[in-house]
């Protein structure tokens, strides 16, 4: 064990991990976060706390992570490269660790064009690859990015990164994954998977390179509430492939929400049988309440205890 992360301990034991996602609010009340945390507490091993996702101003992921932690769930703090330079990011990493955060997920971040401040200036002083490497070196080499020694109490995060098997160029995606592992990534959460065939091909390439033995891959799934939601993801969300069958299936369903849950459970069961996948990451966007039911019905309840 490199860290005190419960998620790391569960993955290292070879358990099939379950993570979910909580989006912080667009205001300063923690009530909704607390509610979602309490509800999910017994059903997931950790929850991601998004960092101003889609470039919309929300409560800081570290602050929201603290509320989640107080309510009994281990947070995975998402950190994007969009809004902070290397100085601010390292400062926040020290702060987050001092508050008890043990997992960090390193991402580039959605471009500000998509958010509520399209006139903002982005930062991208470092990219996600360099962020991963920076967090690893702070922990293992006890140095800041500049090379200066961290004289005491280095932050010891379990380091996560993302992979999108549905973006271009497809053949490069697995190379990029390997680059992230070399940079220091220890667990990977993927983009929402709807095109199972393409994900299987991606995993085949992962296994060919032996990457599944070097990193824990958590496959991303998203329950859909309606065919419109599926259509929206198909046409308007970049880096996503949603096959027509899913749209059609939801369209034909008498109870689309129920069907959306069914599809998600089927996907999880399928994913569990793909060699090299070590867990599932459930992104129930604006539908956090559904996570316990999905976990239970997918046969992933009760959750294992960490050591």
């Amino acid at each position, binding site marked *: 064990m490199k860290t005190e992360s419960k998620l790391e301990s569960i993955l290292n034991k070879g358990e099939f991990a379950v993570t979910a996602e909580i989006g912080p609010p667009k205001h300063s009340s923690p009530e909704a976060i607390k509610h979602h945390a309490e509800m999910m507490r017994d059903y997931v091993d950790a929850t991601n706390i998004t960092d101003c996702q889609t470039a919309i101003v929300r409560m800081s992921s570290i602050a929201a992570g603290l509320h989640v932690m107080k309510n009994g769930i281990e947070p995975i703090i998402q950190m994007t490269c*969009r809004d902070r330079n290397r100085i601010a990011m390292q400062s926040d990493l020290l702060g987050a660790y001092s508050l008890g955060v043990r997992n960090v997920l390193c991402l580039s971040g959605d471009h500000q064009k998509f958010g509520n401040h399209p006139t903002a200036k982005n930062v991208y002083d470092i990219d996600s690859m360099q962020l991963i490497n920076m967090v690893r070196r702070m922990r293992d080499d006890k140095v800041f990015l500049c090379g200066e020694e961290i004289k005491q109490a280095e932050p010891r995060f379990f380091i996560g990164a993302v992979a999108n098997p549905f973006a271009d160029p497809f053949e490069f995606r697995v*190379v990029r994954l390997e680059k992230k592992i070399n940079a220091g990534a220890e667990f990977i959460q993927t983009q929402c998977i709807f095109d199972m065939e393409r994900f299987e091909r991606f995993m085949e390439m992962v296994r060919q390179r032996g990457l599944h033995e070097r990193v824990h891959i958590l496959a991303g799934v998203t329950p859909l509430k309606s065919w419109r939601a599926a259509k929206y993801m198909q046409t308007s969300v970049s880096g996503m492939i949603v096959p027509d069958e899913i749209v059609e299936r939801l369209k034909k369903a008498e109870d689309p929400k129920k069907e959306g849950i069914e599809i998600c459970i089927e996907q999880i069961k399928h994913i569990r049988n793909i060699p090299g996948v070590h867990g599932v990451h459930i992104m129930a966007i604006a539908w956090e309440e559904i996570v316990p039911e999905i976990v239970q019905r997918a046969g992933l309840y009760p959750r294992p205890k960490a050591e």
Partner: protein
Amino acid sequence: MIGTIAKPMEEIMPYLEGKDNLMVIGCNGCAKAIHSGGEAEVNQMVAELEKRGKKVIAAGAPERTCYIQHTRAFLEPLQQELNDCGAIVVMGCGGAVQIVRQATEEKHLLKHIVSSLNSIGHFDTVVPGTEFVEQCMECGDCMLNMTGSICPVTKCAKGLLNGPCGGSQNGKCEVNPDRDCAWVLIYNRLKALGELDKMQQYQPPKDNSKITRPRRAVYNEKTGTALA
């Protein structure tokens, strides 16, 4: 060249309130090439200002307004107009505006200078006369040798250095589906060159101290080069 586009007249006019007997100085370098401040546009500006009740007492476009010697030479025969003018409208890049200021200060004149263009970047002419694109943003730490002569710092919306983000689909950038993903272009070119290994290498964070502004280059006689 430096790309420039016109500010709306509504933005310029308040700066000219109470000022008359104007001078208009364009630039027959970059601003001419991109049709924002060459002689033709200077003439249009003069007509527009006159339509709005202003008197223009001198107008023209130096060869390259950002070269101090060209601007000095342009102003030399206009000493009287320079003394009399209430403001100078400059139709050039931000550099041209400041060179005109310098030229007036050298003559111990304190003149109102009004910029009528927005500078939008270091542009390359890809179709002469019609299409100009930003391909280099002068980061001071060029990595084109690693990326098949395609700059990700400029052409990737996030300026990523280690490959495409998750928003690259069908070869296009998520930020603007009309725009190619820079990293897909790089990937395809490196693949053709048999140099894909370059994309597998970890690129460390950029040395941004090289773009600490303002940068400066000074010619050194001993070495025969301009040193940053």
